[in-house]
């Protein structure tokens, strides 16, 4: 007897990119079309799988919406377990959407400036998808490394001076982060004797005294590794340099990678340090809150100060990850729901912005751009004379409109999804118990508002300088580069229009996260397939 085919679907997001990435190595670099076609087929396959997983988790195919895959048929705490629940399925979908847009964007130019772009892209997807699905700490490390190794290659893709400089820092920082990850895992295994997350959560209640302290130290060091990835202040200095140096489609994928760190923290902390876990409940929450708030300030200041467009977008990514971390730190169910919506909308918008910036910069007259910078430095009021009466070409109109869309979502102004995200965040922050609002909630709300203001100022300056003050010459757009931007922004519009159903789904996902007992029960009681010699006990 064997598993139904649908159960194997949980493995597809990992296996498909692995096989396609390996296959792509075999083809010569000159066969662009073929490589692109294989890559696209794989990404579309991932998209279909993610949608199927989402309907399965949410449609009652699995009891309680949690699908469990026992790798090699080993019973739960002994083998590696992959778990698909609503949150994981949603993030798989987000990854696939972003990947298809980034890939399409890279078709004409960016995938051809170096070798093995497509393989690295597939391996990056494999790592990201694996991190979302795995339920074992050491397996998480392996997927994390797969993701990082691919990202090292992608940072250096199209080898130039900037990328080498950025890559040196990026790789060194991430190597140290991986070492911290290992130390954390080692300490957790030493005290709890398990690496399975559910098993760990269950055993935590029985651990106390010196062992508990050691385990908390381990968890803190482990958390540090994820916080470096999600660029919490002061661990995020590498981010603006790196994101501004890499090619745009890679930068768009990297926006997702900061969210991977936040995702792991959300998953692990709500599961392991839940209120049911005894004396260790809520461990580290205040550190996340403070760190997240400091990150928002850092991001806002960086946005105001940045002179390069790539850096502007990187700081926008930092603000969004700081907001997420602070929200996780407060750890209220309603807040988490709103935070997840914020994650979706801000990831899509910042990724679109990363892609858009390059198109805008290409259309700008370099002399004018230089002039605009000097004008700023010397505080000139008068702009140099511009020819009057030139009609706005369609390409420039597209760029301007897309920019406005990105800016609206990033700053959280109505009517797009950014506004809904911030509105619900504030609503959750203000609806404390018994009508009393905690001072931290107010402080966080003020910071989010102020960072939004800083973003408005920075983006407005960017928009005025780019689209009004300096004459953009002959903006020429390729179809394959305009469509991804439009698609990503279209997703934001979709989120706005369908906010009701999306929120209902996110509420169910967040409710799952806040019921760790059910989750643990489901994972640990998953039966092995009978008829084969059992491997477990």
């Amino acid at each position, binding site marked *: 007897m064997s598993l139904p085919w649908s159960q194997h679907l949980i493995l597809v997001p990992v296996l498909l990119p692995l096989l396609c990435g390996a296959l792509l190595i075999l083809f010569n670099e000159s066969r662009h079309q073929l490589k692109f076609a294989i890559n696209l087929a794989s990404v579309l396959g991932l998209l279909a799988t993610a949608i199927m997983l989402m309907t399965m988790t949410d449609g009652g195919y699995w009891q309680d919406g949690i699908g469990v895959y026992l790798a090699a048929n080993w019973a739960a705490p002994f083998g590696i377990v992959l778990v698909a629940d609503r949150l994981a399925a949603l993030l798989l979908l987000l990854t696939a959407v972003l990947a298809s847009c980034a890939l399409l964007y890279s078709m004409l130019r960016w995938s051809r400036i170096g070798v093995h772009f497509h393989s690295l892209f597939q391996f990056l997807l494999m790592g990201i998808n694996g991190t979302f699905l795995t339920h074992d700490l050491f397996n998480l490390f*392996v997927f994390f490394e797969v993701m990082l190794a691919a990202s090292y290659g992608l940072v250096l893709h199209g080898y130039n001076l900037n990328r080498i400089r950025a890559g040196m820092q990026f790789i060194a920082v991430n*190597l140290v982060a991986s070492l911290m990850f290992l130390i954390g895992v*080692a300490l957790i295994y030493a005290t709890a004797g398990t690496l399975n997350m559910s098993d760990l959560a269950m055993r935590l209640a029985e651990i106390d005294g010196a062992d508990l302290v050691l385990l908390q130290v381990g968890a803190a060091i482990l958390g540090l590794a994820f916080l470096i990835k999600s660029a919490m202040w002061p661990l995020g200095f590498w981010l603006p340099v790196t994101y501004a140096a890499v090619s745009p489609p890679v930068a768009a994928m990297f926006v997702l990678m900061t969210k991977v760190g936040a995702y792991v923290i959300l998953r692990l902390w709500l599961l392991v340090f839940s209120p049911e876990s005894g004396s260790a409940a809520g461990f580290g929450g205040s550190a996340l809150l403070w760190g997240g708030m400091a990150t928002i300030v850092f991001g806002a200041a960086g946005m105001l100060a940045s002179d390069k467009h790539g850096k502007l977008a990187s700081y926008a990514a930092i603000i969004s990850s700081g907001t997420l971390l602070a929200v996780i730190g407060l750890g209220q169910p309603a807040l988490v729901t709103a935070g997840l919506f914020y994650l979706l909308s801000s990831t899509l918008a910042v990724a679109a912005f990363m892609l858009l910036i390059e198109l805008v910069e290409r259309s700008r007259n370099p002399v004018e751009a230089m002039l605009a910078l000097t004008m700023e430095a010397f505080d000139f009021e008068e702009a140099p004379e511009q020819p009057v009466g030139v009609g706005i070409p369609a390409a420039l109109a597209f760029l301007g409109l897309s920019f406005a869309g990105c800016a609206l979502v990033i700053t959280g102004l109505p009517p797009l999804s950014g506004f809904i995200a911030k509105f619900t965040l504030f609503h959750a922050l203000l609806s404390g118990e018994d009508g009393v609002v905690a001072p931290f909630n107010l402080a966080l709300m003020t910071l989010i508002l102020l960072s939004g203001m800083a973003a408005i100022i920075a983006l407005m300056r960017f928009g005025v300088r780019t689209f009004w003050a300096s004459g953009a010459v002959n903006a020429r757009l390729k179809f394959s580069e305009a469509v991804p931007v439009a698609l990503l922004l279209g997703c934001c519009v979709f989120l706005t229009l369908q906010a009701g159903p999306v929120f209902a789904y996110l509420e169910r996902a967040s409710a799952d996260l806040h019921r760790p007992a059910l989750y643990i029960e489901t994972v640990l009681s998953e039966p092995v397939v009978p008829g084969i010699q059992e491997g477990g006990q």
Partner: protein
Amino acid sequence: MELIIAIAIGVLFGSGVWLILRPRSFQVLTGLLLMSYAVNLFIFIMGQLWVDMPPLTLGDSAPDPRAFADPLPQALVLTAIVIGFATTALYLVLMIGSRGVTGTDHVDGKEPDQ
């Protein structure tokens, strides 16, 4: 025995931390290597130090866990060594590339006084 290994790990890791804070990329690389050795040792002895115990179970009867070393850390450390080795090698390649392109071995890709 525990003390000796603990001191060894501490010295390795401490030297590694000092080295990765140095300005030359080769020093950083050496620091990363030392740190990864320390971490590998740390994983290897996590939980308990086992002497003269086989890590594998023998025979069909249910084994006595006290007679065997914990095999899991050994499996983990193998994976960690391989991954650490590969990523460090990658850093070495990048280091050589950077030396070729920028003409300096400073980690910032330029000499500080330029």
